[in-house]
């Protein structure tokens, strides 16, 4: 696994430099230059939305800062939570006086840093609320849904939260729609090959030459099973069976779908997966109201994919369809 990099220790900082050079609508801020924010902050008493997480998942997390989406992002090293200082700086950057929602994936390190930063921000007079992405159904049983990890489905939550805040929603309203979107979102991933943390001697996990792993996490966390590789259609069928076994209350037969690539998997393969998703959902009389196909949440050069279903209602759907723009995604 070769990489196009310089000093591994500079990986994140050089990536961020390039990101903002190529996208002048984004800016770096903070003591360690580990906060990505809008160059022209929304201001105007809008509810702020801050996110954060480890690097290695582009476009996640910092790529979703933009109009109708997020206000700021605290950027950690590869697969490592952002430090507390940058979480605090991200919260401050997102703050326009109407409170800040911290919306990020449910990982220990990220939580600890954001929680401490939130306490500090509260001490500085900023109202902070937290909602965690917990969409990975492979990471814990339904009874322990709050222990689940956050993966690609967080994109739906970003979109709904961002649209609600842009429309002038209050912090309570933004929190409510975000929680509702997450409660209605389910993701499951499959992995074919590992990825390598820059500078590490070897990948921190391996997948056999003829194997596939069902339920793998976006850092290679162990999934549900690892077995002989099989056809795309068979994999999709099982992924959908598992997701549809947990249809949330209030689902009305409409979904937003994200067929997400983990990195090395070509777009062609994502469309082959999407074809089957569409066929199977149609058979089950589920209507795809929003189709998304592409690398939205990656794990560097990992090969694999995930399928996310967000069981929309009228409000979520209209928020998912509201105009938004960030470097990697444009809606409306």
């Amino acid at each position, binding site marked *: 696994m070769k990489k196009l990099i310089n000093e591994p220790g500079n990986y994140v900082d050089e990536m961020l430099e390039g990101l903002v050079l190529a996208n002048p609508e984004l800016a770096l801020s903070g*003591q*360690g230059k580990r906060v990505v924010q809008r160059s022209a902050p929304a201001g105007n008493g809008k509810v702020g939305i801050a996110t954060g997480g*480890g690097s290695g998942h582009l476009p996640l997390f910092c790529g979703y800062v933009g109009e109708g989406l997020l206000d700021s992002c605290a950027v*950690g*090293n590869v*697969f*490592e*939570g*952002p*430090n*507390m*200082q*940058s979480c*605090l700086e991200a919260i401050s950057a997102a703050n326009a006086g109407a409170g800040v929602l911290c919306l990020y994936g449910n990982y*220990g*390190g*990220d939580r*600890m*840093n954001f*929680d*401490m930063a939130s306490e500090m921000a509260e001490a500085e007079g900023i109202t902070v609320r937290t909602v965690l992405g917990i969409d990975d159904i492979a990471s814990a049983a339904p009874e322990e849904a709050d222990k689940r990890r956050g993966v690609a489905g967080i994109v739906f939550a970003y979109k709904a939260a961002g649209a609600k805040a842009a429309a002038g929603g209050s912090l309570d309203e933004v929190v409510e729609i975000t929680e509702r979107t997450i409660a209605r979102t389910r993701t499951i991933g499959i992995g074919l090959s590992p990825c390598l*943390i820059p500078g*590490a*001697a070897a990948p*921190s996990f391996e997948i056999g030459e003829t194997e596939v792993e069902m339920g793998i996490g976006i850092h290679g*966390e*162990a999934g549900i099973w690892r077995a002989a590789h099989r056809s795309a259609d068979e994999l999709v069928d099982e992924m959908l069976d598992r997701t549809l076994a947990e249809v949330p209350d209030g689902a009305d037969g409409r979904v937003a779908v994200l067929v997400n690539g983990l990195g090395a998997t070509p777009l062609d393969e994502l469309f082959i997966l999407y074809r089957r998703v569409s066929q199977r959902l149609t058979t089950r009389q589920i209507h795809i109201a929003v189709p998304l196909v592409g690398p939205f949440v990656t794990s560097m050069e990992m090969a694999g994919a995930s399928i996310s279903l967000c069981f929309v209602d009228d409000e979520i759907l209209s928020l998912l369809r509201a105009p938004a723009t960030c470097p990697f995604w444009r809606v409306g």
Partner: protein
Amino acid sequence: MAITVAGIEVAVRRVAARMPSIEAELNAADAKLGDGDTGGMLARMAAALADADLSTAGDVGAAFMALARAGAASTGSSLGTLIVASMMTLGRETRDAEQVEWSELGTLVAAVQAAIMQRGKAQLGDKTVVDGLDYLAQGLEGANDADSVRAWATAAVDQALADFRERRSKMGRARTFADRSVGLDDPGMLALKEVVHAIAAV
């Protein structure tokens, strides 16, 4: 003598000075059970703490808070974040104290352990730095002077490692490798041992 701002500064420098000789060992331990960065992270953090300006810290509590701030900008790793949380706890517990008696150290360590458990959600017996702190807090009970603190503390962290080596990890990244973890030291506990030994060295 007791714990003072000057003493904290010495301790932090000792840890930073010890890092080069233990960084690789800690990385290797973490590579077996996690992502192989415990040593690198700790080295970065120790350097940041040693660089922190404690000259304006008027009391022990302020010194710990200054260390917390310096640490907070240096890492987002789990252990690093828990260390920052520890410094904040120590800062709160020793607020305005010009010095802290050796006899109070065990209670402070227990407070750190409680704070870390609350932050990190690890339980006793999960084979993390929490268990090391538990042994340390108990080992310091009744230690009233520098010499006994030194002796009992190093003995406690050594014992923790030995007692837990054959157990399974139930928390942090190592959880993924629960089976493999038997016979291996937890990187966080190992780091605690090395830090305690570094500070205790005369």
